[in-house]
């Protein structure tokens, strides 16, 4: 225990002495979140839309007027048939189409079923979500206005139809994605670098001939990085919630559990990488290629997985980052509990156990 503490203190000394790296690690989450947050977030003004009006009555004209009265939308095309909607999307003329059904006014007055359709190009998810909410806002405002005339609760329905990416998979994705990236950088990368640095300088051997067990050495060495990683994660989550209005619906305990599991996975990967590498450079390159890129590309963080070829979709299943992001998103956005996130949770637990076991085994069997 004394030895454990001594190594732990030593590691903290390494970290605080290398203040440049420490500052870099702690500012990185802030920079990443702001960068991703502001490049992805879109303020929408004068979005080009098309209108397909089957009614041509007073209400439909009123509705269209309402849409254009806001600065959000600008009607660039008036359509005459459903076919033209697809064409307009394909030509890139519009981001949204509004379809007003036949007998719009008459149906409302007679309290018959009627629905307005918003067809949104969801290939850019972030624009699409914003369009969706703006479209709904205007429709509700319009409903309110006509309700005052008619005292009818639900005058008509809105049917939002997301084209090209119907489930809006990556909205708010950048916060969970950033958490994952930062955990990989801080935990896996730093762990593998710090371990391979000891091997490179030969100090590992000095420690290895002492009575301290290798496992004790490794655990004492990586705990400081786990703490830093946790701090970074908290920074990202707080930035996400307060700066970018990321919802936090689920339980904090569950969120913490998932984060810790992923951290252990990342740690185990870092240890594994250090077992197979002799120098810091190689460890760094391995981390970048073997961890960072898959995490970036195959986790659904930036590119929606369902748009990828089947083979790559299958490969993506073995990337723990993907499951981590799914769990984070479910917990934070949907407020999911244990019942909903059992699959990603089980996979994370499994990957943590397997990778931890493997790295410990490799570490101990490997000659120094």
């Amino acid at each position: 225990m004394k030895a454990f503490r001594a190594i732990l203190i030593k590691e903290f000394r390494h970290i605080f002495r290398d203040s440049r790296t420490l500052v870099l690690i702690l500012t990185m989450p802030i920079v990443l979140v702001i960068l991703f947050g502001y490049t992805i977030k879109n303020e929408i003004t004068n979005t080009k839309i098309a209108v397909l009006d089957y009614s041509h009555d007073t209400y439909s004209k009123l509705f269209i007027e309402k849409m254009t009265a806001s600065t959000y939308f600008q009607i660039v095309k008036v359509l005459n048939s459903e076919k033209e909607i697809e064409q307009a999307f394909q030509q890139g003329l519009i981001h949204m189409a509004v379809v007003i059904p036949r007998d719009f006014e008459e149906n409302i007055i007679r309290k018959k079923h009627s629905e307005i359709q918003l067809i949104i190009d969801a290939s850019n998810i972030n624009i699409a979500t914003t369009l969706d909410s703006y479209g709904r806002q205007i429709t509700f405002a319009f409903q309110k206005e006509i309700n005052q005339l008619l005292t009818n609760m639900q005058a008509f329905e809105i049917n939002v139809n997301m084209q090209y990416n119907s489930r809006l998979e990556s909205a708010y994705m950048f916060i969970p994605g950033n958490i994952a990236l930062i955990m990989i950088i801080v935990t896996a990368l730093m762990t593998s670098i710090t371990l391979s640095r000891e091997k490179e300088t030969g100090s590992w051997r000095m420690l290895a001939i002492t009575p301290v067990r290798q496992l004790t050495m490794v655990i004492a060495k990586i705990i400081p990085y786990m703490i830093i990683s946790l701090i970074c994660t908290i920074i990202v989550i707080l930035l996400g919630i307060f700066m970018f209005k990321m919802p936090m619906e689920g339980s904090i305990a569950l969120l913490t559990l998932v984060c810790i599991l992923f951290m252990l996975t990342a740690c185990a990967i870092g240890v594994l990488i250090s077992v197979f590498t002799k120098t810091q450079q190689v460890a760094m390159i391995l981390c970048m290629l073997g961890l960072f890129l898959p995490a970036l590309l195959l986790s659904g963080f930036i590119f929606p997985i369902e748009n990828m070829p089947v083979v790559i979709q299958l490969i993506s299943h073995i990337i723990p980052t993907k499951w981590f992001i799914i769990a984070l998103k479910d917990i934070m956005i949907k407020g999911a509990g244990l019942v909903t996130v059992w699959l990603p949770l089980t996979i994370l637990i499994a990957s943590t156990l397997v990778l931890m076991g493997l790295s410990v085994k490799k570490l101990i069997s490997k000659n120094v």
Partner: protein
Amino acid sequence: MEYSIQVNNLTKKFGDFTSVNNISFDVKKGEIFGLLGANGAGKTTTIRMLCGLLIPTSGTMNVAGFDVFTQGKEIRKHIGYMSQRFSLYEDLSVIENLELFGTIYKLKRDILRKRILQIIARLQMRKYAGSKVEALPLGQKQKLAFATALIHKPEVVFLDEPTSGVDPLVRRDFWNMIYESASEGVTIVVTTHYMDEAEYCNRLCFMNNGKVEIVGNPTDLKIKYQVDNMNDVFHKISHA
């Protein structure tokens, strides 16, 4: 006669390559025992096995009265090790390095403090004591590494080319430290490429292609090969 190290029929294979091939030798307590040989002769592999860093393919080893295979953990309390590369922590101070290893060896606080003061006085490092090790000249670093390897007063200390890259003046100083420790009863196993250093050893073990060619004291070896310096002994053995 009391032996600190007994090695019998020790072999280490890496795949098809036999690095150490069926070697046997004994080292007496308080002896300075030199392991010599060309690069790749198997010296470093032998030392690493004796330290418990490598597991032998076959053979038996007894270090400081403990069996390497069954009492590995006990042995670790009684050996020290210093490698050719300086391997203390450059970004920690002299005192912090000594404290770290002293604590790892579970020295009591007051004993550790006393030893650190002794070491700093012996190495005349008072002005460096609080500064980072990276600021020390190489010779001083190597002496500090040696002192660190001895901080828990081990019975046997292994020095793997401790003086490579160090200037002759510091090397002489370093060997004085080795003599001091040996006179206190510490058994020293040292590998070196410098044949003048080989002369300082009580006994030498020449290795060639993983085998022990000959073991003897420097004077006997010079007489046996009818030469007047160790360099020629080395050449005669290596090219035999």
